[in-house]
């Protein structure tokens, strides 16, 4: 039996709004934290390749060797930071001053003249596998271009839809909106309900005739709006500051964000009902909302590459359905074929979490 008295509901929401305005930690989580996260993902986690520092060891004095060395120096992928003997460069590699050693072997020029060119030796720093892979690929590319080697028999003509220049920022910045909204939806909601338990105000409110539904709705509506405001700020920054294209419609963004807030807010309510303590609530919210959204949602790491049990686990993470929606709305457009199933999944989880939260929060203290 759900009873709703609109006057009481309005009074509770006004109260919540005043508290939001006066509580610095709410504003911190809703506005400062999102901007910080956005900037971190926009600038700090660039997976796009910049110039990598390499060491060059030229053991041949031929024109060919000098020419190749020059090609490496001029390449936009490399910064030839050191030259010298392999032994000396090896120390630089250990110390992390360079990421790879490129060795042009002795008799390199003569071997080319003889029609049996000696291979270039590339020693990468395997302690960072990504960079190592990248250096090896591009170093060979530079050599091949220099040598004018005929193209391999089969070449790929690749086109990257939605993000032709492959800017990782175009993916990371919209994705970070999911992280931000997980924080606001789950962490903030968990905190504000737990705060009522901690400060004892819930006692006085529960002793009045309000219904459970009124109480829960009064907690949800303000933070729903707050999260959408924060989302709008993030989206605006994404487009204006980070230059992320926005090919979908604001309406679609609003729809997917609202759908995501259902499970996020539901989780927040559930956490606070179960913990009743701000400190524990924030820890639980961090472990159950923030970390999974960051690591297991497909945001940074591919879900398909994870072990099967973890893949199953990701099925119950609302963020995994939100991330593809965000990248689609930003980069591809309003593809409802993508958005609708995800929206339905999020709403489904939202309904389940609300049902649980409703069951667990009682108008009693025991």
């Amino acid at each position, binding site marked *: 039996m759900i009873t709703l008295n609109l006057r009481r509901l309005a009074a509770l929401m006004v109260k919540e709004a005043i508290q939001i305005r006066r*509580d610095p930690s709410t504003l911190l989580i809703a506005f400062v934290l999102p901007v910080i996260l956005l900037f971190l993902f926009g600038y700090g986690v660039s997976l796009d390749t910049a110039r990598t520092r390499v060491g060059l060891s030229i053991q041949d004095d031929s024109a060919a060797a000098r020419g190749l060395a020059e090609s490496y120096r001029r390449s936009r992928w490399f910064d030839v930071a050191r030259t010298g003997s392999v032994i000396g460069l090896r120390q630089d590699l250990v110390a992390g001053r360079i990421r790879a050693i490129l060795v042009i072997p002795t008799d390199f020029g003569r071997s080319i003249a003889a029609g049996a060119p000696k291979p270039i030796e590339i020693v990468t720093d395997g302690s960072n596998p990504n960079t190592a892979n990248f250096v090896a690929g591009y170093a060979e590319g530079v050599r091949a271009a220099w040598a004018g080697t005929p193209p391999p028999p089969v070449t790929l003509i690749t086109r990257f839809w939605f993000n032709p220049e492959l800017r990782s920022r175009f993916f990371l910045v919209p994705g970070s909106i999911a992280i931000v909204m997980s924080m606001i939806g789950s962490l903030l909601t968990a905190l504000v309900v737990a705060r009522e338990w901690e400060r004892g105000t819930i006692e*006085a409110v529960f002793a009045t005739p309000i219904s459970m539904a009124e109480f829960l709705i009064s907690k949800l509506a303000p933070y729903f709006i707050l999260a959408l405001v924060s989302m709008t700020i993030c989206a605006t920054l994404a487009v204006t500051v980070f230059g992320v294209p926005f090919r979908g419609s604001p309406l679609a963004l609003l729809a997917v964000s609202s759908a995501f807030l259902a499970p996020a807010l539901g989780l927040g309510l559930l956490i606070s009902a179960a913990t009743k303590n701000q400190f524990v609530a924030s820890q639980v919210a961090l472990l159950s909302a923030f970390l999974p959204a960051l690591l297991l949602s497909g945001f940074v790491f591919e879900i398909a590459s994870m072990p099967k049990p973890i893949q199953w686990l990701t099925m119950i993470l609302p963020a995994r359905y939100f991330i593809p929606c965000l990248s689609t709305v930003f980069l591809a457009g309003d593809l409802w074929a993508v958005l609708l199933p995800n929206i339905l999944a999020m709403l489904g989880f939202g309904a389940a979490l609300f049902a649980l939260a409703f069951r667990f929060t009682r108008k009693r203290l025991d």
Partner: protein
Amino acid sequence: MTAPAAQARSVTKRFARGAAPALDAVSLIVATGQITGLVGPDGAGKTTLIRVLAGLLRPESGEVEALGAAPGVRAEDVGYMPQRFGLYEDLSVLQNLNLYAELRGLPPAEHAATFERLMHFTDLKRFQNRPAGKLSGGMKQKLGLACALVRTPRLLLLDEPSVGVDPVSRRELWSMVGALVGEGIGVLWSTAYLDEAERCASVCLLNEGKVLFSGPPVDLTARVAGRVQRLDDFDGGSRARLSELLARPDITDATIHGRSLILVTARDAPPLDPTSLGAGPRARLSPAAPRFEDGFVDILDRKSSGTSALAATYAEAPRGGGPAIEAKALTKRFGDFTAAEDITLNVAPGEIFGLLGPNGAGKSTTFKMLCGLLTPTSGSGAVAGRGFAEAGPAARARLGYMAQKFSLYGDLSVAQNLAFFAGAYGLVGARARDRSRELVEIFDLHRYLPVNAGTLPLGYKQRLALACAVMHEPPVLFLDEPTSGVDPIIRREFWSHINGLVERGVAVLVTTHFMEEAEYCDRIALVYRARVIATGAPDELRAQAARNTGRTDPTMEDAFVALIEAADRAREATDLAA
């Protein structure tokens, strides 16, 4: 007889399976048109019972009824004020009132008039736009009450509305609630202050989850009728005399009351003969009115020994050579707010000195400056002859400190707490072990050694806190409301230790709202509006109040209120002149 506003029949409540019951077959009737007192020390079960009546907790067994229905059903007619008042600190006074008016369904047309009436009633009109978090304790309490009254209830549940609040505010609150009773409201007022119980029409005395007594308070005091006597003009110090008298089997209870002693004789004991008391030729006995507390002690049927094993082995504190605590013109400002101004006082070795005053008057600022927690803006002070400005840690090594809130490490065991404080006060090796063993012996902590301090019974927490504070046998002790919320026997036991230490030259500085505690002081300073407005022995302050008001035999609380009112009048007079 009209139906009661609320009643509980044989209610039992446990918070964990197998745990001791928080309420054990408790029955209570809250009649309409009167104040029913729910009295008992902390942890007695008062809050649990009130929450059951408000419908916030479900009892395990027994029947509960509020306004003729199950608790929670008639919520719109029940006013409930929880212990921390249930106020939203970020909301202003008016916003809080408005919120509760809407929640309790007050028709919008009545809002303005009701708020006007309540703000007039609570004198909060001036502060209506101030956030609740920025109100003083007394004002919060009034606002909490106003929120509970916003739609005139038929049942009013007040959970310790007067805890931590000064006597002036307490009186105001009491008279406000008293006015409501005339309108036929049933009020349940829970309190740990026993003097409040005496003013209730009916009282339910709870202890450890059980009802010890139920009925009009006079019925309880009747238990000790004719057995309470007052001893005046005796020879020697009151503390030594008290300890001697308590050793007699025919005296079950004795307390210090200024320069007098209040004695309760054992049931069926022959009348006391003043000459047999060995209290000197001039000693005289006169009958005294029994207090609620005397009845409570009688019903508990335990007797505190009056002698202190702690004092017996305590290092004699040096008596000569100046005051133990000295403050010269101490002033503390926070920004442009003056919290304490020109405080000058001396506490001699072997003296108990009390700091009293309303909340926010500068009492705790003064206390904190004296024990080195705050640096004064100007002025100087010394503890045990060492100026705390120069020699911080050295001065701190000579003082013991016990805070009102239980401030030991709750997650550490008793033994670990003792070990930590021994080390923190620089006791090492065999000396640390011996001293800890000695304290365990004195305070009978053996069986609790491995128990977490946080789960100790209240009385043992009290003992452990004192044990840690006197670990290093300091010549100076700072006590911040040391016995608020404990039962009278535990309080007597505590003070018999303090009395014993004082006899050995220890100087004690104590802050308190408990008038019973104030009676133990040799001298009292009353702090009001950042200044000391009166200093003197309890009897002197009472006499001063008697002169001011013309009342005969005022209580300590009367004196407190009278002196503050006099200070207000004097200030208004100077304001007018200016």
